[in-house]
């Protein structure tokens, strides 16, 4: 296979990491792909930009909230210099912009492998009850609200504690109305409205990373339980599980929705052994390298699907494979920071 140029975002390998670096590690591990990696960074201090063993070149890009046009202009500039073959956006908050721009990107020669707008929209946290009904999946009761007053209208449908969730990120447990109001303001100021109030389902949080081919087939899926959770709710450690019911649920969702691209299912297993779907993240998660280590190189498969190749579903994975995240003080020089912050390239 000729050398590919793959551009991707999510280089913020921090305490609440983006999936960029783990996705790159999967691509670097591939025995099929030979790739030049172009990092797309929103901030000057995204660690991935300075990890030259993983990222060949990094370009600053404008935030999607600045509008589609500035982002596309910047991508066209990068494409002229780098001839990007495949683009992998790794943030929930930028996916909408990239999905809207899919055709434009394709016309200039950049391929992506993203969910459709319909798939993306219907799995939104605020639409989860309808999603559960439509696809016959257990979901906790939830209501999107635009103010605390809104919540008061639905108050009788909830029992404290409830989970207060942002539309893209962040989730907090609120044990009373005061806490709910506090978290509402905290999340709304960061991620905007609506805020989703979700019934709290007691149990063990388990997750699945999966890849759908867009035709209803599950190319790969690996279940995991977080063994160490940070105060931001992120996995600092995890272990792969051998759980047929989680895989059945994943197959059911992918086959019914014809999911296209990477996804992460966030599930709760109750004491009665029932699985509740609490969230679908429309991209590969930051722990995807665990799946690679367990035998399913999902980033590699995603790139191959983007290139239009036929990819056969993975058969099995190793259960009991663990990851332990760690922090590391990477040393760099001021001129590196200077290049990225002044020229927007490193």
């Amino acid at each position, binding site marked *: 296979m000729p050398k590919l140029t793959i551009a991707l975002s999510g280089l913020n390998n921090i305490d609440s990491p983006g999936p960029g670096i783990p996705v790159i590690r999967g691509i670097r591990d591939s025995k099929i792909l030979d790739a030049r990696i172009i990092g797309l960074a929103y901030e000057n201090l995204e660690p991935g930009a300075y990890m030259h063993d993983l990222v060949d070149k990094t370009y600053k890009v404008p935030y999607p909230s600045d509008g589609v046009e500035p982002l596309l202009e910047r991508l066209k500039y990068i494409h002229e210099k780098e001839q990007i073959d495949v683009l992998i956006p790794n943030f929930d908050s930028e996916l909408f912009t990239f999905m809207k721009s899919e055709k434009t990107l394709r016309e200039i020669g950049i391929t992506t492998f993203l969910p459709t707008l319909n798939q993306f929209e219907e799995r939104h946290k605020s639409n989860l009850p309808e999603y559960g009904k439509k696809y016959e999946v257990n979901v906790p009761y939830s209501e999107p609200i635009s103010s605390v007053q809104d919540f008061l209208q639905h108050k009788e449908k909830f029992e404290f504690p409830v989970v207060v969730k942002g539309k893209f990120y962040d989730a907090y447990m609120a044990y009373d109305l005061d806490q709910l109001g506090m978290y509402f303001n905290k999340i709304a100021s960061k991620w905007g409205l609506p805020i989703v109030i979700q019934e709290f389902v007691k149990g*063990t949080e*388990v997750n699945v990373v999966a890849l759908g081919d867009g035709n209803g087939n599950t190319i790969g899926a690996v279940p*995991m*339980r977080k*063994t160490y959770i940070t105060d931001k709710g992120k996995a600092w450690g995890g*272990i*792969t*599980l*051998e*759980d047929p019911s989680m895989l059945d649920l994943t197959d059911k969702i992918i086959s019914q929705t014809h999911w296209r691209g990477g996804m992460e299912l966030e599930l709760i297993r109750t004491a009665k052994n029932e699985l509740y779907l609490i969230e679908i993240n429309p991209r590969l998660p930051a722990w995807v390298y665990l799946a690679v280590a367990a035998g399913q190189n999902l980033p590699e498969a995603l790139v191959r699907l983007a290139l239009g190749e036929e990819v056969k579903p993975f058969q099995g994975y190793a*259960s*009991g494979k663990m990851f332990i995240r760690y922090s590391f003080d990477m040393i760099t020089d001021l001129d590196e920071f200077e290049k990225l912050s002044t020229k927007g390239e490193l």
Partner: protein
Amino acid sequence: MPKIRKNIAISESGFVFDPLSGESYSLNPLGLEIIHLIKNGQSYEDLSEVLLAKYEVDQETFDRYFYDFVATLKQFNLLEVETDA
């Protein structure tokens, strides 16, 4: 006799891994010995006879500790679920 779930992994050192829940546990040497006897399909009478001969313990005390141990295994979902015939 209770049965240990088939996919439970038990190492020689007594480390137990449940791949369904992702939980792991440590057995002491006696716990490991009992688990092996259970896994080998020993009846309670045979198992009891082996351990009473090997350790200084009376039948009543052994019964009590054995059923405590089995209750713990059950609590951690390490046993096959018994179904009514």
